[in-house]
Structure formats: C-alpha cells, structure tokens
C-alpha cells in the first residue's frame, strides 16, 4: 500500500498497516486490553452457562520476559516485555474435543469506527513449549492462530487463520482458515450436545468436530499452505515471526494471509455467516490463541500487534 497514506509515525515500519490504526500494542506499558477469552459469568453464583466444554480454565495471559532456565531472559523483539499466552499442561488427542485448559486465548474488545472495508491484523510473535524436558518440543505445539470476531448489521462471523503445527505429535505445519463445513448442524458443531448456546461457525477455536488428519468442522486448509517456520533448534531459543491477515468486511471475504515473507491469496473465500447475536452490533474483536498437543504447557509470545483498517 501507499506509504504516504500511513498517518501514524509511532508504528514501526516492520508493520504494514492500513491508513487507520485501531490499536498498536507493544506490551511495554501493560497488556493494552488483551485479556483471556472467557464465557459470560451471568448465572447463579457468577457461574457460566452450562456447556459441553469447560471454558473457564483456558490458560492465563501475562506480560512475559521470555526467561528460560539455561538461556536467561530473551526479552522481546522490542524492549523486555511481550504478551504471553500460556496453556495448562493438559491435552486430549486431536480428534477429541479440546481439554479444558489446553488452549490459551487473548482477546481485545473493540468496535468499528469506519465504514466497512479492509481490516487487518498484524503481529510479531514467537512460540515454544515450556522447557520442562530435554529434546526439541516443536511437535508438542498443536496450533496457534489469530482471527476477528465480527458482527455487522446483518451477520456475525469469525474470520481468521490457524497454523496447524502438530497433530498427535505428527508435524503438519500447514495454514488453515476459519470456515465451517457446509451441512454441519449446530448440534454436531457442539460435539452432539443439544441446546448448546453457540451456532455453527461461532468459536471454531474449540467447537467443531476434529479429525485425525488435522481437519475440523471449523477450519479449511489453505491451498499450498504448508510452511516451515523458524522454530529454532531448542525450546529456549525463540525467533520473532511476522503474521498479517487482511480481510474485507464490505464483501465479507478474506483477502490474504502473510506469514514471514510468504503471502497466501485468499480472495473470494467467505467466512461462515451466522445470524446476529444480541448486544454486539459493531463488534470487532481480534483474538489470538495457542493450543498444546500434549501434557505440556506451550507458549505464544506476542511482541507487538497492530489492528488497522481503511
């Protein structure tokens, strides 16, 4: 895009923002509103609605110095602090529904302030498991991803990308996008439970049946989307990696995904459109998450994030 249109001089040019910056967080001064994604604690005793999945135990987010026992403090790409998403040390097999605590999410709750059009997520991040055992733990990270939860005047939809890294210890290293399979019912989406609140297409991070080859009801593989990322040679060496996802909220379509220097064209692909939910018109929530593949904590370190729009 035309660099002359960029109005913000505080965003480093390792980002490629659209003209209007909704958020730039480098986590040097706090979490910037990124917090754990939790259910609504609106029931008796401030408990969450009954669900087939316990969503109250997703791992914590925190400011991190990325410190390791034999390497010391990595710090961040810029400064000392990054935002860390940490799972608990628990996982089900891939083809089962996610174990409580096997994921960690960070969400920033925003709303639209511009006409519909291009919206973009960018981050510099690194990923690794907890160095609690010897060897190289790359295969213990199941997946990570980033998406927008959007609601406009007609529809709610999840639009985003997931890097499927490992399935039951078998490295896949393949990008997927959020898009639910046609023909999946709301009940199948919720692992067969009748009366689950969510609709097909909503919350694909944990809903939608999973299959041993890495497919789920909620994700589609990106054509040619295999990619080897810079994991490094041991679990206490982390490299900062660039991710960009651009979507079009006017057309309700994907535009493209950039991971490192690779760009995947996603034009013409639609997310799954769902009838609007109450009280969230204009919602524009970026969400980042990480998933563990085994009984081991895995971490996603986010050095910085930019959310921008045209």
């Amino acid at each position, binding site marked *: 895009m035309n660099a002359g249109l960029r109005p913000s001089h505080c965003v480093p040019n390792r980002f490629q923002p659209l003209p209007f910056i909704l958020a730039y967080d480098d986590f040097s*001064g*706090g*979490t910037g509103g990124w917090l*754990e994604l*939790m259910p609504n*604690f609106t029931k008796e*005793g*401030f*408990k969450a609605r009954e669900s087939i999945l316990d969503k*109250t*135990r997703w*791992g*914590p987010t*925190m*400011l*991190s*110095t990325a*410190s*390791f*026992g034999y390497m010391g403090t990595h710090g961040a790409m810029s400064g*000392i*602090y990054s935002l*860390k998403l*940490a799972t*608990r040390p628990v996982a089900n097999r891939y083809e089962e529904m996610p174990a409580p605590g096997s994921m960690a999410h960070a969400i920033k709750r925003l709303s639209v302030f511009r006409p519909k059009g291009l919206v973009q997520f960018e981050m510099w991040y690194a990923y690794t498991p*907890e*160095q*609690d055992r010897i060897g190289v733990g790359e295969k213990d990270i199941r997946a990570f991803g980033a998406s927008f939860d959007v609601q406009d005047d007609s529809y709610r939809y999840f639009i985003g990308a997931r890097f499927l890294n490992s399935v039951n210890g078998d490295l896949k290293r393949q990008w997927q996008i959020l898009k639910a399979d046609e023909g999946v019912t709301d009940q199948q989406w919720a692992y067969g439970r009748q009366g689950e609140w969510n609709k097909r297409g909503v919350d694909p991070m944990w809903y939608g049946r999973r299959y041993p080859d890495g497919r789920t009801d909620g994700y589609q593989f990106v054509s040619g989307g295999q990619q080897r990322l810079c994991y490094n040679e041991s679990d206490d060496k982390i490299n900062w990696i660039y991710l960009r996802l651009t979507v079009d909220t006017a057309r309700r379509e994907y535009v493209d995904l950039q991971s490192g220097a690779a760009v995947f064209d996603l034009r013409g692909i639609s997310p799954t459109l769902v009838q609007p939910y109450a009280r969230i018109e204009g919602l524009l929530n970026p969400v980042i998450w990480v998933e563990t593949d085994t009984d081991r*904590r895995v971490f996603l370190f986010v050095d910085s994030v930019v959310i921008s729009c045209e």
Partner: protein
Amino acid sequence: MRHFTTAVLERHASLAGDFATEPYETPWASEALFFIRAEETAGENPLLRARVQISADGIHWVDEGTAFPPITTTGDYFVRISHFGGWLRLAGTIQGEEGRFDVTIHLVLKE
C-alpha cells in the same frame, strides 16, 4: 500512574489433594496479593493449606516463606508479598476425608 494487574488464576475451581496454581510471570511488579475465595467446601473437616512459591524459571519452585493460615470454612482470605522476582504461584493441599474446596484465586500485582 502505577502499573496494576489482577490475574484470575482459578475460577470456581474444585480442589482436592495437592494443587498448584499455574505459573504467573511477575517481573514488572514489586508487590503482590494472593486472594483465595473459598466458595464451597465438602468432606469431613476439610482443611485448605496454601503457601507462596517463587521460581527462577517457572519450572523449579521454592517456598517463599509466606503461607495462608489454615482455611476451614468458606470466606475470603489473602496474603501479602514483596521482593519475589519473576514468577509466583500458590502450592497447597486439601486435607480431611473426601475434602474438597471450590475456590476462586486472584493474584493482584502492582508496581
């Protein structure tokens, strides 16, 4: 302005036997409070013991020296700590026959 964070380490969690909260990074903070809200108890003479632990790497833990008084009933309890380095967690145990505590645990950090 001072820097401040409340982390919710457990939400209505049911604890029995030995437990430890998830490791939490605290390098930016110089003072902390752990809160335990004991919401429900079960079993015969249930007793919750919890102590603060610190760590150099988030993996190996040592007792910091601060501990909650033994908790036997529902209610809200806290401890204060400072000079704790880069990591904090609570470790503890539930005693009593079939002892169980449902708890919400907060870590409150300030710099």
